[in-house]
């Protein structure tokens, strides 16, 4: 059974990670547990000690079930109570982050595709912009995030737009580099064939270059989406940490709320996984229709 063949190893690895996690929780939280017990003047048996390390209010490393419980408490349970968009709900904070991620991602992707088309059809643009686009990938662009937020704030632009700009900027370059590769992927013979059909440049772009760039585009989209999310999260840090998943992490670190930080981190990870997963699904649909094997 090929399906089982693939899933069993993955589940084993995940199970191993969870076991290691629980064991580390015992190791890292033991000191606090024994200190508390010594203060109360009681001796802890091993079982009691382990139980305590997995259920502390402010653990150094929360156990997985504590994180999942907090995650459920701040999402599902609040939604059931009809308070899905209250300020204490991770759905609210996640939505704040998601909205600027998506806005930035769309802007960055469209701008990236346009620039890639320009680069492919214009030699001057190719030779002057392309080296910079490639170099920019080796530069920690994320470092300018705080500056963009504060500068735009000082001229009265705040909220969604500055974060979206950072996200757009981060998803822009992977899309440019990927799309240029994709639009150049048709072979000389294919291009020649279109020339013999007397195809115009526009027809060449739409009927040959664009379809052959699709699989490159999707790879770039996945990288860009992950980068957009990181950009939005980091963009939430300098504004005084009011709303968004990044803000939840920062307030968590101010007040030593480890569990809150972990659940914000998990929320961000789930968001990233869902977004990249959606792109993968669209990818396999589209490539299937185009008859391209993955």
């Amino acid at each position, binding site marked *: 059974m090929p399906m089982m063949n693939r899933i069993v190893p993955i589940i084993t690895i995940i199970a191993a990670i969870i076991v290691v996690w629980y064991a580390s929780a015992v190791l890292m939280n033991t000191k606090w547990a024994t200190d508390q017990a010594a203060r109360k003047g009681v001796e802890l048996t091993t079982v009691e000690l382990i139980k305590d390390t997995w259920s502390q209010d402010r653990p150094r490393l929360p156990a997985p079930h504590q994180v999942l419980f907090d995650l459920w408490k701040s999402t599902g349970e609040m939604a059931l109570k009809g308070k899905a968009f209250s300020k204490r709900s991770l759905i609210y904070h996640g939505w704040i982050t998601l909205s600027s991620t998506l806005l930035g991602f769309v802007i960055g992707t469209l701008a990236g595709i346009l620039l890639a088309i320009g680069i492919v059809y214009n030699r001057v643009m190719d030779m002057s912009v392309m080296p910079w686009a490639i170099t920019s990938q080796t530069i920690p662009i994320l470092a300018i995030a705080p500056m963009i937020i504060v500068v735009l704030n000082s001229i009265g632009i705040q909220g969604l737009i500055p974060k979206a700009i950072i996200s757009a900027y981060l998803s822009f370059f992977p899309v440019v580099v990927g799309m240029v590769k994709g639009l150049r992927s048709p072979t000389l013979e294919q291009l020649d064939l279109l020339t013999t059909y007397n195809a115009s440049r526009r027809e060449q772009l739409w009927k040959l270059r664009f379809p052959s760039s699709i699989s490159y585009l999707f790879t770039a989209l996945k990288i860009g989406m992950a980068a957009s999310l990181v950009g939005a999260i980091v963009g939430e840090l300098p504004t005084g940490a009011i709303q968004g998943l990044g803000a939840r992490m*920062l307030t968590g*670190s101010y007040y030593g709320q480890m569990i809150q930080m*972990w659940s914000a981190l998990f929320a*961000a990870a789930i968001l990233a996984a869902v977004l990249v997963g959606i792109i993968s699904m669209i990818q396999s649909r589209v490539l299937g229709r185009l008859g391209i094997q993955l």
Partner: protein
Amino acid sequence: MWFVIAFVIWALGFWINHKLANGEYGQSRATRIAIPTIFGLTILFVWECLVRGFDVPMVILPPPTAIAVRFGTSLDILWIDFVQTFIKGALSGYVIGCGSAFIIAILIDGSRFLKKGLLPVGNFIAALPIVGTAPIFVMWFGFDWQSKAAVVVAMVFFPMLVNTVQGLAATNLMQRDLMATYSANYIQSLLKLRLPAAMPAVFNGLKVATTLALIGAIVAEFFGSPIKGMGFRISTEVGKLGLDMVWAEITVAAIAGSAFYGIVSIIEKALTFWHPSQRGHA
């Protein structure tokens, strides 16, 4: 006045590049370097002229000359920050993270089962926003460089692991059979065949990790750091509206990032000169 100069410089830069690109030496190596350089200089000049022309306040966008002056006069601070963030935070994390990923990849390479489990999980984790672990590591390892190195380790580990495992699978059956006919043992065939064959993929991972390392070290400082470091300086100077200093730090980050990448690429060229992707460029 400044607008006219900006426009003239823009037109001039474009005209030179147009001539160069479509000229007789359009494909030569010198032209390939000259065109992006002229493009970059044009942008800097136009930036300078527009900032002066529109009287843009320093707290929004300083002109390149002001950034250069600040860069020149604060070399000592920039150097301290560079050592703190790059050498102590990014580089130590990079070495530990990539080194351990490389060793673990070799260890799990023998087991099909582990590979099948770790590859999808590693690929999945590599797509997650690992930067978010920064506040957690800052709480565990304190404000100094150790927590930054830990974030870097977490960020570079999985991309490096996945690339190395894929690289070790790059040999084909014929090549491995040949080693078997030479009666090479595991160590010999690892050292003489599979590791050299894995090098292109390994360096792919190492190059991806250079950028991640610098990003991790800088962003982790936004969550708390001693009073030095590039991320610390950026976030505090932004707060004080000292944007010329912020841009000077960004310049350092850009130079450090591309130099780091460049050095790894040079080592790659030296070690994988035999690979098709490295040949034919001479």
